[in-house]
């Protein structure tokens, strides 16, 4: 299956992804409606996009007492059936990454569903920090990021010399 790979080393916290997701969910640009959230920490100049990884062994899915969470057979996405969700929030407590959000207006949990296979966050990501890739490619992408960081570090250490 394909997932939204996140590269904090490329993210600039422009929030285009949040707007795109919020728009799909709600028709408006309120961050609170977005399933992907980008946290920006000024002190560290760190940008951290967080979105569901559709874990192979999804704890939220297993633990839902309403059996409202399932895996989409087409995309492999872990999805919440809003008509079944009772709003108990067990999934919020189950997700170790904070990637499930509660919609206070509808009273149900909400999360990324990969937009049915064409994630809008990726279409809106102008830095390229988000990529919709095969899960198997992930390791390669991580290596690429690490290699680049090393290269840059080398250049930086030379530069500071």
């Amino acid at each position, binding site marked *: 299956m394909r997932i939204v790979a996140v590269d904090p*080393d*490329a*993210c*600039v*916290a*422009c*929030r*285009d992804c949040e*707007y*795109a997701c919020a*728009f799909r969910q709600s*028709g*408006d*640009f*309120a*961050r609170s409606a977005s399933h992907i959230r980008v946290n*920006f920490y*000024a*002190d560290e*100049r*760190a*940008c951290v996009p967080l979105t569901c990884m559709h874990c192979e062994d999804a704890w939220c899915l297993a633990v839902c007492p309403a059996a409202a969470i399932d895996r989409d057979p087409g995309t492999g996405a872990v999805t919440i059936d809003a008509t079944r969700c009772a709003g108990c929030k067990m999934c919020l407590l189950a997700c170790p990454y904070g990637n499930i959000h509660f919609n206070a207006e509808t009273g149900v949990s909400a999360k990324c569903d990969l937009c049915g296979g064409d994630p809008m966050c*990726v*279409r*809106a*990501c*102008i*830095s*390229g*920090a988000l990529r919709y890739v095969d899960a198997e490619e992930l390791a390669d992408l991580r290596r*690429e*990021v690490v*290699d*680049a960081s*090393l*290269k*840059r570090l080398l*250049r*930086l250490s*030379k*530069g*500071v*010399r």
Partner: protein
Amino acid sequence: MQTGPEIRHSLCRMCDDRCGIDVHLEDGRIVDILGNKDHPWNRGRLCAKARAAVDMIYHPDRVLTPLKRTADGWEQIPLDQALDEIAGRLADVRDRYGARSIGVWKGEAIGFGQQETVARRFAHALGSPNYLSNDSMCYVGRYMGFTLVDGAWPIPDLENARCIVLWGANPPYAHPNMTQYITAARRKGATLVVVDPRMSAIARRADIHAQVRPGTDGALAWGLVRQFVEMDAYDKAFVEDHTIGFAKVVDYARTFTPEMVEAETGLPAATVKAMARMMADAAPRMAAYVGNGLEHHENGVGNIRAIAMIDGLLGALDHEGGTLFKEPAPLRDLTLYDEMPLRHLSPLGTDRFPVLYDMRQECHTMTAMEAILSDEPYPLRALVMTGANPASTNPNSPKVIEALRSLDLLVVRDLFMTETTAVADYVLPAASFLERTELHAHAKHQIVSLTDKVVSWPDVQGEYDFWHDLAVRLGIGEYFPWEDETALNRWLLEPTGLSLETLEAHREGVEYSPPRVGRRRQAGFDTPSGKVEFASAYLKDLGYDELPVYHRPAYRREPDAARPFVLMTGARKLLYLHSRFRNIPRFRTAIPGPEVEMHPDDAAALGVADGDTVRVTSPIGAVDLPVKVVAENEILPGNLQVTHGWREANVNLVTHDDRFDPVSGFPLMKSIEVSVQKV
């Protein structure tokens, strides 16, 4: 009749980057806009502005019928009547004051495109040299700085660079998809330096964020030049073969020691050295890009020239991974400057800012306001503008409004009512970028493409139709012989050997010539000397500095104790473009209103917190703004930033229309001495 879902390929023009888009239609109505995955520039990715073009096009406040000001307010009139009356009144002004008393102004609100050359053609056909545009406050300063040195403004080869240096530029907000290219380079190990008084979005990713004081970039550039010389790290062969003025540069740079640069810019001397080392190590694969942040200063062009010199010193010019010279598309030229030169008619501002006209055939908009109000050097009595909103975006707004109000005739074509239409005599509906057909050239990829009318409204004209219809009524119809936009496009395209049909089949664009690197090194640079001009005889002859001598900003040279803060204006927000898009509700949800960005220390000293209102006062005027306290490292203490274009708090109430860069004539908008009081 029910027509199924349909996708039309086009280009977004919510800003000037022209990303490839797929316009989704249902029953002839646009329902969504997504990135075109085949377009070489954006590769399917698209910022939040682009998709919201749907909201703009179908906005309930769109102006869709011609409006005429009457004693009782706006009256809706038929298009033909509007054109007849406007032509009649223009003819009156021409007869009474001469053709040059009529000005034509190009804005950007309808989407960027060929409107510029049609408008220029119309002005000249009419006999007026007074073509005005917003370019003279954004873009032209940089074009000038680079062209004076390199003969053109070369394009950074970001994706192949080993070091990228951004000066006063924030691509994620200003050129969103440029960020992809920076990421691509960084993924190959490239380093990134961002020179900006603020921690912009892109500065979050910088290996070095060179947080210099506003307007001191020139000192840093000279400091780097000195380091390259000291380190013996410049490209001797390139300097020898392709540049003039190197000895003078070495001599002048001598005083710019890292310590002196630290004292002037606030950047630690060690960082200056590190930055120089990083750039030199990467050379010639060092790609620099200068943003609008450098332009709005009294020393803007000088600073930009100093930065431009670095490309030459490091041999990065016309080199892969450095900066590239693109060949312009061989389209026919619609302007009449060669056939019908009108410089003898004294285009407004040319006497004071000759380079502006020499290089861009632009008039100086601030001088135009003076001319309207004073009839000096000669009257300017009528303006016809499309998609421009100078009442918001020009400095010293009250004076602009006073001037526009006093015109005999102001015609504004726009999508919406604006601060400027508020003082117009006629408001005509303008066609948005999906409501007209036009040709585009994308220099980076050396491609031409064609965008088509996707939707239309009965009384809404495209640019060509409007100028054509007006020209016919004014007896200059012979200059507009083409039946419609398509006929014009066919004529423009002819020299390329490509057909409109080819472009229709390849909406992502067709290459007009393969990009070549090294052409300038072989054939010479497009400057008077054919060399890269560190020293400019042309400027010297005009009485300017031969070298890009560093002039300290006024607030550094003669600090004003009564105005201890330095105000920067005009930093782009992702969702807004100048004064545009504030009426798109979802944008307002995300970025609800204006604010003055302030360092926590300054907020503490003023006793203000987020949301409190302060009054910002300059010699020009005052504006009240809610405070936004940013993080310690996001802005320097003593500096403020306010984004322009808010109707409810217009920062151009305090910007200068009386202090300019001497070469470009750009107004002082980014290092303004102001005082701040809690309200």
